[in-house]
């Protein structure tokens, strides 16, 4: 990477809260001092996947020790149905329950433990109704939360028929629980005149404010939502913190006492949605070189019982089904399947990883069918620089660096030589087999909902020269506040220690967007920069007047202000004099992402401001007796543009990769036949632990700027690293393939030891002949609706 020409921006500074984290003094919502009389709330949950509630007897709940209040849907004073896009989720269950774990009622009691105990005492009579659990079941029944969407170009059937080669199969991939270490929590404090203050662990304070207002039936200006930090979010607190915030607020309003609602881990798993699992059917035609000449996909996403963000997640899966490849003739259909399970929601990557996995799996199919190296097949399909650069959704890829980036990683990871070493190892090893895969990623940056691409900031300079910045983004560990502080420090020529970022607060910056879609720094950094530049402009005018120098010659640097020939003035002295001259020392800032537009009816436009490019090369070893696998080495090359903070970005890249690996290997969500999620805590749901980190993990930055005018020419880093872990799954598949005689391994995800053993069995069998039912694929209706 080029040396930074900046003082603060580009420096590998520690996370702004690092010292607080290690000292245990960083305050999370549950750590805030409790006000006297605080009550604690818990949900009573449905234990049926789909049923009519015939009767609900809450007598034992009400009379349990410590119980102060019990509420059902009827007790909600305002709106009873909510949702980020479609208002299809009751605050508490109505006459029907739609999944095991759906909140039926809520209890407020003197202690957390009392509330939880009481919540288990309800006697509920159900009349069971038929249940739909999997995406496939739901797709067969045409059970959708939103209508199907389809985009296509060219005559797909002709292209498929023309070949010259053709292959069709299907792939299933499991979901993923966010498993933020800090569970869902909200703390509602009633104030005067119907005011309600809610501390909430949420990525979207404005939406929480709006939903609390709706549920209470009050105007938004009576509600204030704050979040200093989250103990992880990963998408799981984008919308789904709402039930905790709103119900805590209702109970607080009814009792007049502060109410805290903190989910026990098992309840959190049972109540909240996860990454969408999916089944994809595909049919592909290609040349003898491996160039795709036509491809048809049908993605079936399990959305759960309600729409939540599923429309946008499914759209993003469609938008990433091309990944780094030009698809000339294609037909991509997306089914948003309704099931009797948790309402699936945002999770880092937001459908993107699901789209990327689908096409990468197909790339390996083609390579294996042709007996070619998968990397060569990938390269031949890459988007062109000047031509072959139109995406399926009509956006031209203008900033393509995938050729150079992959070439570089191929060299630095020693891909070809290791391919040969592995071939030799496998030839001499009966039980253990190794596999290698190099997978590129292109990830679109911006919310696909164009209006969300805006941000605000509020900057104060105090007369001692200290600076406080507030913005609409939330800190969940990703280092957003660190980067925003760096931007402000850079703009004002200050040491980072002079700049403090305060917690997100809907009464400071209003109408904020969720901190999501990797856009936190792009949007809020620019808004903060705008605020700083506005103040700086006012200060320059003042300095020019006061010191008689040219405005354009005034420099803010090194904690001083330089005005022409004057000796440098310490920043604090300078702002004191400006204050006395009655110059405003605060400003708002605003940013809206330029260039983007998107028609959700046709799924076309320019949904993304720019693309992030990256790639990973993974080497694994598997045990063919047990199906156990281990990642031995990973090499990742990432295009962060001009990184604002390489240390923070490195953390995001490594963390995203390992999280993605968990999704595709050890993390398995398992529902029993009655629809109860049986993997609902870390004892049964296995995210990567420390020994899963490979002994060799090489991460490097690709030397690149951002072709667009993004904040300091940086690029986003939140989500794109996650799908690079597709390399781990495909390396496992490569190892499985090494045991067979050219048969195509069927490896579904997550690749648990059991699935790997199944995959090993699949290569001993004849070639799979699962052909999509052409009738159902051909009958796909046109796109009707998208995400608003």
């Amino acid at each position, binding site marked *: 990477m080029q040396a930074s020409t900046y003082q603060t921006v580009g420096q590998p500074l*520690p996370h702004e*809260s*690092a*010292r607080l*984290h*290690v*000292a*245990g*003094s960083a*305050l999370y919502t*549950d750590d805030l001092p409790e006000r006297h009389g605080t009550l604690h709330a818990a949900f009573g949950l449905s234990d049926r996947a789909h049923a009519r509630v015939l009767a609900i007897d809450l007598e034992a709940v009400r009379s349990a020790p410590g119980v102060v209040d019990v509420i059902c849907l009827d007790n909600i004073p305002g709106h009873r149905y909510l949702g980020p896009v479609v208002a299809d989720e009751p605050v508490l269950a109505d006459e029907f329950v739609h999944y095991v774990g759906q909140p039926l009622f809520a209890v407020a009691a003197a202690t957390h*433990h009392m509330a939880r105990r009481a919540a*288990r005492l309800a006697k509920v009579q159900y009349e069971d109704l038929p249940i739909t659990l999997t995406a496939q079941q739901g797709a067969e029944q045409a059970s959708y939360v939103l209508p199907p969407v389809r985009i296509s170009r060219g005559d797909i059937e002709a292209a498929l028929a023309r070949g010259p080669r053709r292959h069709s199969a299907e792939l299933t991939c499991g979901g993923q629980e966010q*498993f*933020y*270490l*800090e569970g869902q929590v909200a703390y509602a404090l009633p104030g005067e005149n119907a005011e309600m203050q809610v501390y909430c662990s949420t990525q979207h304070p404005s939406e929480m404010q709006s939903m609390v207002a709706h549920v209470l039936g009050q105007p938004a200006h009576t509600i204030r939502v704050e979040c200093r930090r*989250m*103990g*992880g979010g*990963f998408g799981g607190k984008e919308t789904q913190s709402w039930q905790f915030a709103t119900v805590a607020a209702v109970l607080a309003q009814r009792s007049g006492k502060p109410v805290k609602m903190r989910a*026990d*881990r*098992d309840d959190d798993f049972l109540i909240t949605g996860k990454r969408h699992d999916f089944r994809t059917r595909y049919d592909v035609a290609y040349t003898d070189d491996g160039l795709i000449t036509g491809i048809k996909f049908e993605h079936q996403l399990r959305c759960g019982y309600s729409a939540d963000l599923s429309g946008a997640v499914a759209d993003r899966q469609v938008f990433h089904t091309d990944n780094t490849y030009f698809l000339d003739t294609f037909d991509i259909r997306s089914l948003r399947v309704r099931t009797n399970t948790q309402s699936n929601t945002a999770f880092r990557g937001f459908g993107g990883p699901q789209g990327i996995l689908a096409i990468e799996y197909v790339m390996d199919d083609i390579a294996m069918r042709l007996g070619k190296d998968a990397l060569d097949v990938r390269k031949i399909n890459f988007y062109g620089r000047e031509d072959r650069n139109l995406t399926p959704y009509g956006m031209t890829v203008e900033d393509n660096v995938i050729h150079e980036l992959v070439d570089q990683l191929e060299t630095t990871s020693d891909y070809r030589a290791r391919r040969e070493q592995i071939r030799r190892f496998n030839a001499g090893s009966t039980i*253990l087999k190794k596999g290698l895969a190099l997978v590129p990623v292109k990830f679109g940056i911006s919310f696909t909902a164009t209006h969300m691409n805006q941000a605000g900031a509020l900057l104060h300079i105090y007369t001692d020269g200290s600076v406080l910045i507030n913005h609409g983004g939330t800190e*969940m*560990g*990703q280092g957003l506040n660190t980067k925003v502080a760096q931007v402000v420090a850079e703009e004002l020529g200050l040491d980072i220690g002079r700049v403090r970022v305060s917690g997100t607060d809907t009464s400071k910056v209003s109408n904020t967007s969720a901190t999501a879609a990797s856009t936190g720094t792009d949007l809020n950094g620019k808004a903060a920069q705008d605020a700083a530049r506005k103040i700086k402009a006012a200060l320059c005018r003042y300095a020019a007047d006061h010191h008689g120098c040219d405005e354009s010659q005034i420099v803010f640097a090194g904690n001083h202000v330089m005005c022409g020939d004057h000796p440098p003035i310490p920043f604090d002295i300078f702002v004191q004099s400006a204050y006395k001259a009655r110059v405003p020392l605060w400003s708002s800032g605003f940013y809206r992402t330029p260039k983007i537009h998107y028609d959700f009816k046709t799924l076309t436009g320019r949904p993304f401001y720019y693309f992030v490019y990256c790639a990973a090369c993974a080497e694994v*070893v*598997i*045990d063919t*007796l*047990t*199906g*156990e696998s*281990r990642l031995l080495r990973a090499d990742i090359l990432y295009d962060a543009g001009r990184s604002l903070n390489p*240390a923070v970005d490195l*953390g995001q890249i*490594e*963390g*995203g990769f*390992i*999280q993605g690996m968990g999704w595709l290997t050890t993390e*398995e969500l398992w529902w*029993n036949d009655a629809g109860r999620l049986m*993997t609902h805590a*870390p*004892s049964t749901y*296995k*995210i*990567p*632990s*420390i*020994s*899963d*980190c490979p002994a060799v993990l090489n991460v490097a930055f690709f030397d690149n700027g951002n072709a667009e005018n993004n904040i300091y020419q940086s690029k986003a880093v939140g989500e794109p690293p996650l799908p690079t872990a597709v390399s781990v799954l495909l390396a496992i598949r490569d190892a499985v393939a090494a045991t067979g005689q050219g048969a195509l391994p069927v490896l579904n995800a997550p690749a*648990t*030891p*059991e699935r790997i*053993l199944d995959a090993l069995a699949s290569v001993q069998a004849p070639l799979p002949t699962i052909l999509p039912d052409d009738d159902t694929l051909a009958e796909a209706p046109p796109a009707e609706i998208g995400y608003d």
Partner: protein
Amino acid sequence: MQHRDTVHFYLNGKAYSVKPASPTQTLLQYLREDLRLIGTKEGCAEGDCGACTVTEAALQPDGSLAYRAVNACIRFLPMVDGKVLWTVEALGDAAGQLHPVQQAMVDHHGSQCGFCTPGFVMSLYTMYRKGLVRPDREQVLDHLSGNLCRCTGYRPIIDAALDMHAYEPVVPDDDLVHGQLAQLRERCAATLVIVAGGSRYIAPTTTSELAEAVRQDPDAVVLAGGTDVGLWVTKQLKTLPNIISVGAVQALHEITLDDDGLRIGAGVLLEEGYEAVVAEYPEATELWKRFASMPIRNAGTLVGNLANGSPIGDTAPLLIALGAKVVLRKGAQRRSLNLDALYLDYRKQQRDPGEFLEEVWVPRRKPGVKVATYKLSKRFDQDISAVCSAYALTLDNNRVKAISIAHGGMAPTSRRAPRAEQALLGRSWNEGNVRQAMQALEDDYQPMTDMRASSDYRLKAARNLLYRFYLESTGVDGTRV
């Protein structure tokens, strides 16, 4: 017998004497709710994520000092009686000087959201106090096996651990801790009896007192490490009946080795019990490390794992294969039982009311015996087995003179595979006979399907593990990832 109802311990350098609100109030609840020491976090309330990790010091039976990381979320407050504890608040202050482990975490960017960080810091601090200031990578992974981080991917945390020696060292104050523990030993001399919140907790100090208490109150929960019992409270929200703790009986913390075998008392921790077993049977090293995370092994007991009798407890298959016996005690009466005879059916044991497991006896290694034990789970560390297998084989001229094959996860209890054993006994130890035994496993077991694995996988894997054992016994290596 003298009684007291006050729990005594040192926390962050200060002496505490507390009457718990309930015997099952957890240490974590006490820290966060009563003392408002909010640095220690609740991530799961089941000892699986490590956000609640604290450091504990105790005196060993030989008078030496042991430092251990433990999970506060499933540790009942009375269980810290007589211990010296530290939480993250005892280390350096964010505004002032940080402890080397904290500074290393900051410098290596080891925190992102920060919620798991105090737990990692305390696991690192425990290593530091133990004198493991320059650990190797394996030691780091072992000591941090009970701490989950969802943000970093762990690489920077491993680097911080490997680098903590590079900072200005903190002078150990072991003498001070010794003094505090000696003081506590005096204060805790009388038997702890707590009656509160609808149940009674008693921690007898001698084996006979303990035996008498269990005999008189056969419905009481016999509590050792609480790594399972803790979840009955935090997850099932049970009000426990009376609790009888084995923790204060010094004699039960002992491990003795004589010519015949190894005796491991009911109070011996998993970590120490496995260390002793592994000294005799090094083949069990991998199982030891993968049995559970370090904090769980520091809290749970080896005999407790056997007494709990879960079909997926990993100790039983190994010890059944090795021919271990358990000593059951009721009042003054003792009887010895082969371990495999203890387990009758799912959670059903050949154990009379009022009887408890006093110790386990593991035979010493016999010359020529080949032993192996394997664990299969979705994740390598801190996971529950889909299948756990163990083998002990004695050959005479390549004929099978004795063989014992046991599995966990294959049946309602850990149990042997008599048909597979029969298929091998007296026969040549060759691939053909082993394959017949692999087939016979299908007659030995009808495993269930659940979230850990399907019945098919379990059977197939059990067969293949026997094959792996065969390969390894004939000197083939390269059989484990």
